[in-house]
């Protein structure tokens, strides 16, 4: 029986506010999995805590909804245990770039075959609208009455500086492009960052759909842009203050799993773990 798009959906009612950008990201992810014909049970989605972190609730895959900020190491563990799974990590800008910053950059440099989708709304949605690490300078809300004085995190530049092998940015309004980027991210044999601009209609009155529609530049359609040129990528995202969409950078380098000494193609979960008497004796011999 061929897979239907509906196979990737759960029947749960969404907890997001009407108009939330996360709907677009959800649709793109479901569609990307469907387009790639990956069986729902072969997908593991690891999500953090936040409005965005609820994305797993609406996709009919194996979902792990972890503690705040720890989606990436958990996803890495899943991938190591079972290489044959498609592993997606997902979460918000707070989850990924505040509490999760360390894991983010270390996972980038480790390069496991994981696709990481950050729903970046420049605000903490679930805790009712505090400033987030990507919030603009001067941004304030009811819950964060003092204006933001911290330079916003630039996820694209950081990922590039950390040696990322795949960096893209999408916009939740452009589900088509975002779907394609996610597909490419999944196909990429290594760590793929997809920063998905996903407006919060309830708490962010600055970084709105309109704002992005006016300001985003699509690199996929920029003549002469070469996403395999790292220094061009760096220059471009700096120049446009990260207000770009499309595939920003990609390079083919071996994934973490591909380099672990003695690591096997067969997933760990399906291996036979018992030691033979001979193997055990050889191990024990060193203690004699």
């Amino acid at each position, binding site marked *: 029986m061929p897979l239907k798009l509906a196979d990737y959906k759960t029947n749960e009612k969404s907890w997001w506010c009407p108009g939330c950008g996360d709907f677009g990201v959800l649709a793109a992810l479901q569609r990307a999995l469907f387009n790639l014909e990956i069986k729902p049970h072969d997908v593991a989605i*690891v999500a953090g805590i936040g409005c965005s972190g609820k994305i797993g609730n609406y996709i009919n895959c194996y979902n792990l909804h972890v*503690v705040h900020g720890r989606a990436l190491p958990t996803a890495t563990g899943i991938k190591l245990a*079972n290489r044959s799974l498609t592993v997606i990590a997902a979460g918000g800008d707070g989850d990924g770039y505040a509490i999760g910053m360390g894991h983010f950059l270390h996972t980038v440099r480790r390069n496991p075959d994981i696709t990481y989708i950050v729903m970046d709304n420049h605000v903490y949605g679930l805790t009712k609208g505090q400033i987030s690490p990507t919030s603009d300078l001067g941004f304030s809300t009811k819950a964060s009455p003092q204006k933001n004085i911290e330079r916003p995190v630039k996820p694209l530049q950081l990922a590039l500086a950390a040696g990322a092998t795949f960096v893209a940015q999408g916009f939740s309004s452009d589900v088509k492009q975002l779907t394609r980027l996610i597909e490419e991210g999944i196909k990429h044999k290594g760590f793929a960052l997809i920063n998905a601009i996903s407006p919060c209609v309830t708490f962010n009155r600055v970084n709105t759909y309109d704002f992005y529609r006016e300001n985003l530049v699509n690199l996929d359609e920029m003549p002469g842009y070469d996403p395999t040129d790292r220094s061009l990528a760096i220059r471009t995202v700096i120049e446009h203050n990260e207000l770009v969409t499309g595939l920003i950078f990609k390079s083919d380098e071996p994934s973490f799993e591909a380099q672990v000494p003695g*690591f096997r193609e067969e997933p760990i979960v399906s291996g036979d773990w018992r030691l033979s008497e001979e193997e055990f004796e050889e191990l024990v011999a060193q203690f004699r």
Partner: protein
Amino acid sequence: MSPLQNLISWKIGGEQGQGIESSGDLFATVCNRLGYYVYGYREFSSRIKGGHSNYKIRVGTEPVASTSDDLHVLVAIDQETIDRNHHELVPGGFVIADSAIGAKLPEGHRARLLEVPMTDIAAEVGNTRVKNVVALGVTAYLFGLPVEPFVDLLAKTYGRHGEEVVRQNEAALQRGYAYALEHVLETPWKLAPSDGKPKLVMMGNEAVALGALAAGCRVMSAYPITPASEIMEWLQRHFPRFGGVVLQCEDEISAITTAIGAGAAGARAMTATAGPGLSLMQEAIGLAHAAEIPVVIVDCQRGGPSTGMPTKHEQSDVMAALFGTHGDSPRIALAPSSAQEAFYDTVLAFNLADRYQCPVFVMMDLSLSLNKQTVEELDLSKVTIDRGLIADEEMLAASKDEGFRRYKVTESGISPRSLPGQPYGQFLATGVEHNEFGKVSEDPKNRVAMMDKRLRKVKGLKLDGLRYQGPAELQELDVLLVGFGSSAGPIAAARKALEEAGLACGHAHVRVLAPFPAEELAALMKRARMTLVVENNATGQLAKLIKLHVGDVVRAEAAALGGKPLSDPLVRMESLLKYDGRPFLPREIVSKVQEVMFHATQAG
């Protein structure tokens, strides 16, 4: 001729970085190969080079499981070693000192100083680094040991450095032996023959790593920390052959969540750390409980709180391990007391984690983690792999329409789990409260059902949680000694001494901290005129567990009798706490018992 010895004690000391550790290991390994039982005890600081360090090896014809403060031979690389350790020497004990240091024993000391031209000999054989090997040669003579096993081991150890180095080592050894033969009239303490059984010598951390590998662990994620790093190191060395992976993470939070991820995906995964790392892992530990994910956490306890005393022994993470994460969740925590047990308990930990779908702690302590000790043959046939309840195809196919009830409320509290990759097994695993399908639910009734289910899992669990040695059933005990972890050795030795002194003395060693073996311990405590809880921390953490759990047992009995407890054994319980960074010496326990008994007599 000197009388045959059943137990001798040897120590080498010097500055950190002067080969103290490798010399001690060599000596221990040779004794082990000769069929003796050995127990090593290393003192070192949290620095890389410099600072006094020493390594003591006790060698016996019967199992040895503790250090002690008597010493037959002290190899002193520097004067500081003599100054710090001479008080341990038995009358007539030997100090082997390099003649180059101009060693001095305190005025009137009854030990013998044997100045050996270690530096000169080393220079003569052409390698300044073989100084300590000269001392090993002297040692061999003093204990009447054959030289060949030393030669063999040196050849094996230094083989990869080339023949020349091996030759230099052998020469140094022989020269040391010859020197002793010439200067010491007769072998002062000849070791009695060993039982000749083949034995292993390893530190607890190696036993844990080997146990993990044997139990099927193939994912290990950790962050380096003393005294746990050896586990990661050993697995890094051996995993490639078995397709396993060690991830050295960016921190302990990453380490535990990586292991949780691997556990959720169906691998056997573990992390190993010490107190600071345990504290950092607390939040994620709660996640594994809430989402019911198997994971094994090895905590190698050291001096706390905070960074504390990183290279010193302590047993003070018990409360943190059992109660450190917020909210309510059940616990399973094993506390092996020897390297041998550490091996089997690690295997057990993986089986329990899978069976009960939750984190399982293996509580080590620094002495147990790092002290090399004899382990009797390990039996692979006792290593079974029990994956617990995993849904099969049929079960999953049946749930096709409704969805898979991953968190089905069952009588045991345990629900079959599906693993990513299994068709029709999809579910949401979350640290948020959830319903049977794993979906987030804030419904009060569901909450209670789920919390009860999780707590119920462990309620019925009965493990072989207490090991008892002493007078047999029903006999009244003058004193019951209770401890956990590596203090098994010193407590056992103390028990023996007390029994020799005429006391009816029992020793109950708590091998499972949670679920606590309350009934078993209560029964023993009731037989005892007094109970002494022996532990290496300042606040009596094991004693607290006893008060809670044995207290519950005693109170339930009292309630059944209408509320009047006749005699509460907890009233007759005292604590012996040691928290100066060192493990117990048997005589400290003996003294404490004598002191308490004396007081009791005075009072009574």
